[in-house]
C-alpha cells in the first residue's frame, strides 16, 4: 500500500518590496502603523516588470530541486497554479517543463485558482499519485496580482504580495490507511467579489458590474470587495473545517497544526475563534509577504518546517478560500 506525502517545500519572494511606509507616502488616508494594526502586514514582494508568475515559481522550484541531485528526471507530474499565466496559450506549465529540465513524458498542466489553489493542487497530485498515474509530482504556485492592480487602490495594494512556491510530492510505502480527507466547495455567485474584468475573452463592454463599484475603483483592474469575501468565509470556512474533521473522524485536539489561507490577520483571528482552534496550533505568517494568494499556505508550511516546528507524522489541517468563490480543506499526515 502506498500513500502520498509532501517531501519538501520551497518558496521565492521577488526582491522588490512594497512597505507600509511606501504606501503611506503615496496615500492621503493610510498611515504605516494603521495598515499594520488593521491587517497585520508590514511588507510585500512585488515582481519586477520583466518578472512573471512562472518566473517566481521557477525560482522556487530551482531552490527545491537543487537540494537533490538530478531529481528532475524522475518528475512525471507538473501542476502549476496561477491566475497570472505568461500567455493565454501555451500553458505556462509547458514553459516550466522545459526550463526546469523535466522529462518529456511528464504530465504538465496549469490550473486557474487563487487562494484555494494549493489545496486543490494537493488533491490533484494525490489522486494522480495514488492511482498510479504518476510517481513524483511537482506542485508549483506563482502569483503576481500586483500586475493587475490600479496603483492608487489601497484596498488591494496593502493586502496582496507576489510570490512563487514549489512542493515535491511522492509516494511512500505505508501499512496504515491514510487518515486525512479532502473537502471542496464552489459558489460562482461570488465571482464579482474578486475579479479582473477585461483580463480574458469576455469584453469589458459586455461585463458591467451588477452593482456599481465604489467611487475611485477602476472596472478594468483588480477589484476586491473585502467585506463580502469576509462575509462568505464566515459561512464557508467553519463548515469546511467541521466537514473535513468529520470526514477524517478526527477532532481539533488531534490536529497538530492548522494553516488557513493567510488573507489578513484580522480575518484569521476572527475565523480562528469561530472555528474553536487553539491559538498555539494556528499559524499566522504573512507579516513579511502579504496575502500571496495560492502561495500563502506553502510559504507558511515551509517556514514551519524550516523552524523545526512541523515534524514528520504530525497532522496538519490546511484550508484555502477566496476568489471564485472557491474553497477546500484537507487534513494530511506530514
Amino acid at each position, binding site marked *: 500500500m502506498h500513500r502520498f506525502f509532501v517531501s519538501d517545500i520551497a518558496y521565492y519572494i521577488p526582491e522588490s518590496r512594497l512597505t507600509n511606509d511606501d504606501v503611506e507616502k503615496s496615500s492621503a488616508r493610510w498611515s504605516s502603523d494603521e495598515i499594520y494594526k488593521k491587517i497585520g502586514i508590514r511588507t510585500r514582494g512585488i515582481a519586477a516588470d520583466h518578472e512573471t508568475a512562472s518566473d517566481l515559481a521557477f525560482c522556487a522550484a530551482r531552490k527545491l530541486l537543487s537540494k537533490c541531485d538530478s531529481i528532475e528526471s524522475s518528475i512525471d507530474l507538473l501542476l502549476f497554479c496561477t491566475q497570472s499565466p505568461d500567455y493565454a496559450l501555451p500553458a505556462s506549465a509547458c514553459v516550466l517543463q522545459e526550463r526546469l529540465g523535466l522529462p518529456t513524458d511528464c504530465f504538465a498542466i496549469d490550473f486557474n485558482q487563487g487562494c484555494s489553489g494549493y489545496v486543490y493542487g494537493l488533491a490533484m497530485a494525490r489522486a494522480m499519485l495514488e492511482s498510479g498515474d504518476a510517481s513524483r509530482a511537482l506542485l508549483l504556485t506563482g502569483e503576481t496580482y500586483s500586475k493587475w492592480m490600479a496603483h492608487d487602490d489601497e484596498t488591494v495594494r496593502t493586502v496582496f504580495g507576489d510570490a512563487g512556491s514549489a512542493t515535491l510530492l511522492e509516494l511512500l510505502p505505508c501499512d496504515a490507511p491514510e487518515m486525512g480527507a479532502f473537502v471542496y466547495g464552489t459558489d460562482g455567485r461570488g465571482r464579482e467579489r474578486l475579479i479582473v474584468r477585461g483580463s480574458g475573452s469576455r469584453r469589458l463592454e459586455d461585463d458591467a458590474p451588477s452593482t456599481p463599484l465604489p467611487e475611485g475603483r477602476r472596472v478594468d483592474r483588480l477589484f476586491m470587495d473585502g467585506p*463580502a469575501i*469576509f462575509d462568505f468565509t464566515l459561512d464557508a470556512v467553519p463548515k469546511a473545517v467541521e466537514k473535513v474533521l468529520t470526514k477524517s473522524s478526527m477532532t481539533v485536539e488531534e490536529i497538530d497544526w492548522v494553516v488557513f489561507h493567510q488573507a489578513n490577520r484580522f480575518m484569521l483571528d476572527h475565523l480562528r475563534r469561530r472555528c474553536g482552534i487553539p491559538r498555539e496550533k494556528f499559524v499566522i505568517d504573512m507579516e513579511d509577504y502579504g496575502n500571496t494568494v495560492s502561495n500563502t499556505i506553502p510559504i507558511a508550511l515551509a517556514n514551519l518546517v524550516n523552524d523545526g516546528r512541523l515534524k514528520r507524522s504530525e497532522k496538519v489541517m490546511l484550508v484555502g478560500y477566496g476568489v471564485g468563490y472557491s474553497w477546500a480543506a484537507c487534513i494530511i499526515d506530514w
Partner: protein
Amino acid sequence: MTKDEFVEELTAILNEDGALSAETVLDDLEGWDSTGVLGVIALLDEIGANVGVDDLRACKTIGDLILLTGDKVKG
C-alpha cells in the same frame, strides 16, 4: 448586549473619538470604510446576528445597524 454596549463597540471599531448615536450617519464617519465594515461584520457575527453584507451596506445610520441586529441588541 445592550444598545449602549453595542454603540460603544462600534465606536471602537470605527475608530471614532466623538460619541456616536442612533442618528449618526455612517457615510459621515471616516472609519466607515472597507476595514470598518469588516470590523462591524465581525462584531455582528460575534453577537450571533446573521446579517448579509448587502443589508449592512444599505444601512444609513447607526440606528439602522441596531435594527438589523434584531433581538441580539436590547434596550
